[in-house]
């Protein structure tokens, strides 16, 4: 897989009249899982949409490697960045297979939309479904699947794009613990294979466990960035989330290392 570094510098974004992002910069390296955390309204989703190239109303630059996003055609960009927004929807009664195949849209030739998928497309789809373990869900309509199964299919769609950069917005919403861990493991595997993965997460435990670097947003600005240990300090958590560790206990940092996924 091609590798690419994602860089954002001095991002300023307004949503309507409100300032959503104030001078944000970040660098996401290939092979790494970068997590964006912060309270509701801190601007996490907006930042991710700017990185994905689907938000046009911002100042600053986003680059993939050495090339700026604005200089790419939309098709080029689509092949480099795979994006999964929050609460993904499917409007028609498509099957899991069909949804995953939509990940190959950037590769379809313009006037050949009636033809079948190419061999390369087929292979990408099969590999993606295997990686997310939803081959047996393939013929079923996505609207009949459970939350966890649906998220696997959406992830498969993202993987099918075979893009070097993967951006995912709160993939673990509404999933039970098994599914949450599974989902993040898939993303971590992608990163380990050379992908650049950036995620917006709500759950601090999961963020601490899976991410290589974190970006903590507060009041539309970067409050802290670095490794989880550097970012998730009592001082930062107090400022951003207004929470404090129980009094009297020595603070050992968040420690989920002993938790394991239950396999049957």
């Amino acid at each position: 897989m091609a590798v690419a570094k994602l860089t954002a510098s001095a991002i300023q974004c307004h949503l309507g009249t409100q300032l959503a992002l104030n001078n944000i910069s970040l660098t996401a390296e290939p092979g790494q899982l970068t997590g964006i955390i912060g309270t509701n309204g801190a601007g996490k989703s907006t930042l991710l949409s700017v990185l994905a190239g689907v938000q046009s109303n911002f100042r600053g630059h986003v680059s993939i490697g050495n090339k700026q996003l604005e200089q790419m055609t939309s098709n080029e960009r689509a092949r480099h960045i795979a994006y999964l927004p929050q609460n993904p929807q499917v409007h028609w009664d498509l099957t899991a297979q069909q949804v995953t195949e939509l990940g190959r849209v950037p590769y379809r030739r313009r006037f050949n939309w009636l033809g079948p998928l190419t061999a390369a497309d087929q292979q990408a789809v099969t590999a993606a479904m295997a990686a997310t373990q939803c081959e047996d869900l393939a013929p079923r309509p996505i609207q009949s699947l459970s939350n966890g199964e649906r998220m696997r299919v959406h992830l498969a769609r993202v993987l099918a794009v075979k893009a070097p950069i993967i951006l995912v917005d709160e993939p673990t919403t509404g999933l039970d613990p098994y599914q949450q861990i599974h989902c993040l493991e898939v993303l971590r595997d992608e990163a380990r294979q050379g992908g650049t993965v950036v995620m917006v997460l709500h759950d601090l435990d999961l963020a601490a466990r899976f991410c290589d670097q974190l970006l903590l947003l507060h009041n539309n600005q970067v409050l802290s960035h670095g490794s989880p240990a550097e970012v998730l300090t009592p001082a930062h958590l107090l400022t951003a989330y207004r929470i404090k560790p129980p009094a009297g206990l020595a603070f050992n940092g968040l420690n989920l290392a002993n938790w394991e996924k239950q396999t049957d």
Partner: protein
Amino acid sequence: MHIGFRKLLLLLAVTTLCLFCLSLMLPSNILSTNGAAPFLLLELLNDDTDIAQTILIELRIPRATLALFVGASLGLAGAAMQGLLRNPLAEPGVVGVSGSAALGATLAFYTGLATIAPLALPLGGIAGALAAVIVLFSMAGKRAGTTTLLLAGIAINAIAGALTALVLNLSPNPFAAMEIIFWQMGSLADRSLLHLQLAGPLMAAGWILILLAAPATRALSLGEVTAASLGTNVRTTQRQIIVGTALCVGAGVAVTGVIGFVGLVVPHLLRKLCANDPAKLLLASAGGGATLLLAADIAVRCIPVGTELKLGVITALLGAPFFLYLIFQLRTLEQ
């Protein structure tokens, strides 16, 4: 029932062709005391007075071709609007696009504009249709549900209907006021080659625009944001569908009046056969619409019911109960 897409298209094409030929050849039922006229083909073969030829060229061919064109346009526009608004109840007649087209056309015709410049007739219809689609899209485009869409349609239909009646009543020509029946119920009777020439190319232009947007409708099934991330130019797609729909529906209504429900029934029936693929559904709906309208027109012309029934009555008799059924289905889904 699983039938491949190519086979489906072939089936629709063959059916349309057969119905087209039937429409040309079948005798009209006339209240004649010396029996019904024979198949036109027979007449053509022993024709020494050119009458059969005149009937074929000036009456039957325009009528059948318009049925084909308008049917295809209505089916295509229905599927396109459903893809654009992502709602299975969107249809030019139901949501007021046809009604507005009728208003535009009546304004162009009864003010005498179309007498000076014949092209003003379909252009007026297109302008009316465009206004309605734009209003609908701005109201119900983003995240509005079925209720908003249907309410907007009711409002647009009410305004367009009232204004059309006003235009007709204000016309100094005493026949104008009664012609509201034609505009609101639609008819293909006695349309001429001139009507085909006026509306045909514009409808074809609409088809091209909509089909250009076809592949993008697939990505749009995942929502506008995801579609954009997959490289789709959402704005362009929306504009193509809006203008394409206005061209198809506007030009068609200008020469036939409002024929409703074709764009509702056809996509719904064919959706499963196209495996829910919105792009394939566009093509299939065009074929299905042509088939439906040709069949309905043959029924109207050849079945004896005294004076000829208006085409829109037939499509409404079929489509309105279907519409109710769809609403019930959606309600149970939402619950």
